[in-house]
């Protein structure tokens, strides 16, 4: 995997170099592709490791970024923040890391894989239920009774940590039937009808509104997750990493993120 990625990056870089040189040689005009920000000319691949809950909005933002910087390819690796953080610490060739909690980002900064990070959005939990809410769930405490099957995220990943906080705030004691590896796993179990409800992010319910309904609950305000982003110190494409991290914090990106249901910090 990493070899393929690196090889692709190499090939893309080589191609960009060759086309850049021929452009210079034939026309003599130095500015073949002016970048949107007027900064360093970007090329190659930007590998972005991002929390599973960012999948829909980052995919859209990746396309916009590629449109703003022709010649740049953005590749995503979406997954549980903690697993992504571990693979970055273990030397995965990532350029940018966007986590669903400061705790998972801390794993990366503690290992000196990122110098600093910046919170760019916040996300809160909601109760995901099948379309039409067949079990008439109206509040967090409804999940604990009535033999309902509930899926939560494992406490090791940010959505699970937030769920623990929210349940504690609501003094709700429930035993889930499964602890999923990331938020999308918890959501899918509702979508398939295997569980009656799960605690997921607001943004996940908005992204999946055709199949899922959301039930907001007041305790969610006490379990808001901050999402930090960082350009990584060992980024194979340092310029691309910096540009992408900056782009995610731009007003343009913020519009996409708030439309997806994220709150601004």
């Amino acid at each position, binding site marked *: 995997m990493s070899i393929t990625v690196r090889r692709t990056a190499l090939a893309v870089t080589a191609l960009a170099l060759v086309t850049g040189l021929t452009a210079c040689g034939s026309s003599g005009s130095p500015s073949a592709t002016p970048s949107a920000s007027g900064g360093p000319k970007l090329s190659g691949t930007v590998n972005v490791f991002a929390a599973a809950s960012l999948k829909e909005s980052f995919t859209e933002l990746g396309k916009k970024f590629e449109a703003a910087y022709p010649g740049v390819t953005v590749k995503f690796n979406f997954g549980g923040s903690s697993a992504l953080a571990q693979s970055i610490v273990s030397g995965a060739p990532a350029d940018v890391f966007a986590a669903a909690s400061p705790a998972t980002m801390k794993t990366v900064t503690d290992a000196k894989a990122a110098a600093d990070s910046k919170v760019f959005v916040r996300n809160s939990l909601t109760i995901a239920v099948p379309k039409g809410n067949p079990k008439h769930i109206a509040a967090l405490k409804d999940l604990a009774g009535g033999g309902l099957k509930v899926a939560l995220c494992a406490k090791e990943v940010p959505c699970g940590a937030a769920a623990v906080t929210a349940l504690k705030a609501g003094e709700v004691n429930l035993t*889930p039937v499964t602890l999923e590896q990331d938020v999308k796993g918890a959501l899918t179990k509702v979508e398939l009808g*295997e569980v009656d409800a799960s605690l997921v992010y607001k943004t996940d319910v908005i992204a999946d509104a055709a199949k899922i309904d959301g039930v907001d609950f007041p305790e969610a305000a006490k379990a808001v997750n901050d999402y930090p982003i960082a350009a990584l110190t060992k980024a194979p494409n340092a310029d691309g990493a910096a540009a992408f991290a900056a782009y995610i914090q731009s007003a343009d990106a913020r519009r996409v993120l708030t439309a997806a249901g994220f709150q601004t910090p």
Partner: protein
Amino acid sequence: MSSARPAYRRAPFALLLPALLGLAFLVLPLVGLLIRAPWSDLPAQLTSPEVWEALRLSLVCATAATALSLLLGVPLAWLLARTEFPGRRFVRALVTLPLVLPPVVGGVALLLVLGRNGIAGRWLDSAFGITLPFHTSGVVLAEAFVAMPFLVISVEGALRAADPRYEEAAATLGASRLTAFLRVTLPLIAPGIAAGAVLAWARALGEFGATITFAGNFPGQTQTMPLAVYLAMESDPEAAIALSLVLLAVSITVLAGLRGRWMSST
């Protein structure tokens, strides 16, 4: 001059080098596990109740999955080896499909059939109130789905190697086909069945993809050792290494203990 034993010759360098590299490739990662192991913390890591719960569940489920595979797999192997019916090659291909199918795909398929909204699962739920996902029985089913082909292949091979004339002789002496199978064929292929059972058990013990997809992950209920290792790796690599060591030790003990007994002839 003829010698009874094959002559052991010095291996040519062109074979020896890749062979040693191959050996290193298979063994070194396990050595790495031993080197990185948090030996001083190990007792604390391994005496936690979660570890024992996951290990107990792993052993129980793998054994139950092997029993299920024996119950269904031996007759299936017999059908494939001893009878002739149209489409037998196709059936054999279907039986071995889980060997090459990614286990996650198996989990998805099981979920769609036996899940609460699945074709068969819906009926199980409404008629008996049974839902297999998120239940220990779901783990057993997921493991058996992935492990049974190993057993079927071993037993079918043993059946093909066994001389069918013994069964015919039993039949001429008045034994029914079932009696001949139970009294003659089964003892004849016992080593093959045992080898297949060990393979199936070991495969079931390491099963991850189908289990996490179909049965979910909950400590004490569906969280087997591989799932516990995966989750521990997300936040506590030291714990993941400790858990891996346990699984490694169990696997080595079983394979070493049984291999000499059942598989040395091959």
